[in-house]
């Protein structure tokens, strides 16, 4: 019809281009993938990004050192707290101060709660992407409880903005410890339920095993980090490599797997949730008394130089590269966001699989689009 249907039909060499996104249910945001198909098999993928680019790096050049921290809440909105922490740590490194012990503990607990909440959402969305709707609601049951703790202590559910250079903004809520312990108990009781509905399901296993294989060499070369890389056997947990906050005072395992496929990535994240619970358990009863904030000047000026701080977000390594020229604003800030590198590997690992697999791969890489675009 009017020449348009011809475009729809598969051309002579079998080239069929499908535009997945920018509005698509399983891209979890405004990601646009141009997919070349042969039947249902993917021949080539070209990611188009920038639909939600807010130039946080450019914006930060005009913000003070106290303010630019909170712009990062909007990058990886599922790990807003950890992004803030990375910035706060960078400033502390430049000022050569350390957060108070109490702040360090609270930061770590909140980071791990953020990780738990993020992994919960990821778990639910993975189920949703693979066509099982129910896990999404199961995941939100626990996530809501964590969000309630965040709300009570930080005053916000998603963009906590609880970090200041030298510590945390206010002291923790009196209920914080008890409620955190309650939610840990609840989550520990639900592992079996999670495994029953997803991990042990034969369709789920068939959909994920051997799908989207990422080799160890590729993972390193593409700069893939986080659970996605750890599922390919790359040891890259910043919490182990460069401990920050209170991570040097807790015992936990870096989860590694050699599977490299979607199933391995799934398992790594599921086990990481257990590790997070164990980290919080070690810390929650031992929060030291004392100040929650180190005294800093009202207007912070960093000494001239370049500073780099890495933290481990739920999706991988977040690097903050800060160049200071001695003034009250950053001269240049670069966020090395984990999702940006993780997305770059998608075209390589999704090639040769089906459209349904692409959805599974995207789900297990766990992309957050605002973090890619920044």
């Amino acid at each position, binding site marked *: 019809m009017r*020449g*348009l*249907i*011809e475009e729809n*039909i598969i*051309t*002579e060499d079998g080239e069929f281009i499908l535009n997945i996104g920018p509005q698509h249910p399983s891209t979890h945001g405004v990601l646009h993938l141009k997919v070349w198909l*042969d039947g249902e098999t993917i*021949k080539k993928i070209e990611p188009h990004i920038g639909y939600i680019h807010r130039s946080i790096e450019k914006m930060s050049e005009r913000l003070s050192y106290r303010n630019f921290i909170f712009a990062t809440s909007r990058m990886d909105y599922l790990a807003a707290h950890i992004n803030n922490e990375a910035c706060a740590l960078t400033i502390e490194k430049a000022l050569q101060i350390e957060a108070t012990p109490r702040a360090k503990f609270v930061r770590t607990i909140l980071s791990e709660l953020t990780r738990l909440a993020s992994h919960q959402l990821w778990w639910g969305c993975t189920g949703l992407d693979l066509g099982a709707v129910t896990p999404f609601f199961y995941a939100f049951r626990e996530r809501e409880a964590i969000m309630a703790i965040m709300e009570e202590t930080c005053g916000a559910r998603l963009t906590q903005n609880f970090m200041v250079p030298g510590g945390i903004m206010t002291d923790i809520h009196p209920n914080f410890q008890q409620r955190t312990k309650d939610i840990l108990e609840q989550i520990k009781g639900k592992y079996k339920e999670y495994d029953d509905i997803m991990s042990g399901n034969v369709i789920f296993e068939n959909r994920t095993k051997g799908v989207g294989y990422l080799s160890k060499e590729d993972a390193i070369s593409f700069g893939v980090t986080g659970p996605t890389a750890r599922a390919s056997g790359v040891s890259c947990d910043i919490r182990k490599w460069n401990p920050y906050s209170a991570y040097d005072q807790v015992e936990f395992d870096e989860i590694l797997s050699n599977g490299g496929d979607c199933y391995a990535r799934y398992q790594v994240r599921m086990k990481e949730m257990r590790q997070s619970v164990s980290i919080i358990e070690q810390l929650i009863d031992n929060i030291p008394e004392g100040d929650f904030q180190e005294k800093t000047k009202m207007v912070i000026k960093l000494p001239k130089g370049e500073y780099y701080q890495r933290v481990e977000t739920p999706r991988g390594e977040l690097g903050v590269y800060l160049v200071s020229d001695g003034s009250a604003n950053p001269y240049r800030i670069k966020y090395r966001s984990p999702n940006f590198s993780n997305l770059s590997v998608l075209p390589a690992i999704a090639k*040769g699989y089906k459209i349904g697999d692409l959805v599974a791969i995207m789900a297990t890489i766990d992309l957050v689009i605002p973090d890619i675009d920044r």
Partner: protein
Amino acid sequence: MSASVIIFYILSAIVLGSGILAVTNSKIFRAAVFLLFSLMGVAGLYFYLNNNFIAAVQMVVYVGGIVVLIIFSIFLTQASGSDMAKPNMGRAFFSALSVIIGLMFTLLFIGEQKFISTTNPSIEPEVKNIGRQMLSTTEHGFVLPFELVSMLLLAAMIGCIVIAIKRPITHLKEN
């Protein structure tokens, strides 16, 4: 005019009308859809004749099988949305010729038959009887044509498979 006659004319109109539309339509997908209606009209005629089994088989085989296959092959060809080119004169002439010959042959055949009005059919059109006839070797048995047709279908299926696997699958693991 009784209701039965009215139904007959309606069914015939569907069969002939959509048949003509199927032939004259220049959009191939629509032509396939009209063919579908025509075949369903034929199935309706079988129902009208109380030959329920044949009617259902008509639906299963032609509607559910053949037309779906035709539509699939239309999907896989180019430009199925645009108008088809007008056939050249020679082709149209021979087509018309073959249609006329076919029509005359059919009319001749019908003319030779003596239609005797009867109320009780020679065999009850029941599944059991049809099954017996299909597998019997007696005078009205159809076991030979039945087997021949099944051989033909088998050959067609093998042919389809051979066409389908013309190239080996190499897309995986090339990276």
